């Protein structure tokens, strides 16, 4: 009888451990990540970006650019070209965003005009609070 009780005890122990080994991951899986992701917002002064100009920023580790477009207002788009990842540059004269790697061209909304990029540039959430621009 002793062997039997030992085996049953060992089984109960392993069984409980296995159950715990699943309950813990389930809990971590379902619990929302603590504190959200890195910095939630980035603020810039409005006067830092005159009309027609742009400012390069980094938001949540993504290089991005904030454009002050004549007649269309402010917009923030990611600078990571959707083709292969090079960083696009603001071309003021031709009112476009140009990728120096393979000549991908985007308009000032981030939409594709020509070249190899498969998708438009993702926009970042932007709002104006008084004299400050808040990204994120």
């Amino acid at each position: 009888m002793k062997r039997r009780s030992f085996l049953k005890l060992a089984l109960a122990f392993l069984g409980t451990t296995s159950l715990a080994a699943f309950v813990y991951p389930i809990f971590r899986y379902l619990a929302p990540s603590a504190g959200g992701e890195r910095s939630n917002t980035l603020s810039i002064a409005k006067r830092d970006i005159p009309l027609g100009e742009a400012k390069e920023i980094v938001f949540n580790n993504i290089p991005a650019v904030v454009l002050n477009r004549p007649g269309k207002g402010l917009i923030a788009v990611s600078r990571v070209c959707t083709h292969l990842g090079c960083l696009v540059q603001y071309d003021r004269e031709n009112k476009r965003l140009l990728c120096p790697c393979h000549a991908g061209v985007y308009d000032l909304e981030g939409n594709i005009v020509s070249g190899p990029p498969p998708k438009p540039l993702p926009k970042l959430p932007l709002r104006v609070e008084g004299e400050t621009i808040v990204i994120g």
Partner: protein
Amino acid sequence: MWERLNNWLEVRIGVDDLIRSQVSEYRVPKNINIFYTFGFVAAVGYLIQVLSGIMLLIYYVPHPDHAFRSVQDIMLKVPYGWLFRQMHVMGSNLMIAAIGLHMLTVFVMGNYKRPRELTWIGGALLLFVTIAFGFSGYLLPWTQLSYWATTVVTSIPTAVPVVGDFVARILRGGDQVTGATLSRFFAFHVSILPPLFLLLAGFHLFLVKRIGISATPFGLPAEEKRPWTEYHKKSHVDGYPYYPRFFQMDMLMVMVYLAVMFFLITFLPNIFFPADATIPADPFKTPVSVRPEWYLLAQYQLLKIIPNKFLGVIIQLALFAVFLLWPFFDTEKEKNIMKRPMLRVLFLFAFILWVILMFWGRS
């Protein structure tokens, strides 16, 4: 405290009687063997799929623009997401293996014969539903492998004239695999197939309990020959009680199933992820080799080698019909396969052919 709980339940649902009839006095034949546990293992396999699937459902997004990314997030960003995804992927393949073993056992033991024809048919339909699960789930990660394997399989019905194109369009939700395909495969996988599976499984289990477990044809002197002309439940008065003896065997095989699953997750985590399964779907780029999953490879290879596609599809359907209705083809009373050389040869031939076709289909 347990006494009081037991009492409370006893007055309301007669717990003692329930346990007595279903567990302690439920007897299994004396010559039952470990192979009889495969059905239970398959059912537990299904349970694991449901639970891991529900976990995945919490983070998965069924839209072509987000499907791949959401699966990657589950693998890389969500804590322990990798665990549930791996269990689901390994589980889907292991469950089909368990069902296959169960099917082989039933066949070799002759347990599909009268009065158990309905049980066999229920089982064959369950196999079909499980493969539908595997096939619909395969598309959901939206990888190159998913997309193109789905394209190939959904174009198979087009070999049938008149209705073929229509059937293919219904399957795909259009002329090509698109977001519409993803939506309907997702709906099937998550809301239509599960209740269908449960219905069939319930039917299957009900029949097993109602008719009684069939003893193996080996080990005991030959059962009385039928004809079975009236219903009577097969009981084994001199058999063993289900609990603890056979329950232990069931549990042992479940642990083995889980150990195999975690062996794969630890040492062969990419066994079901070839290179094409890690790249997002690209409708404009066909990968060099497009193949369905291993459990469909034999059928696929058969289709490829028959030069006339329509004939190929018809043969597949015919083979499935024979499989589904097998108890009506084999009405010989003798259950012991060792006493039936023709059936043995036929079975071995079909099985070896299936294995050869599967390996051939891999290259």
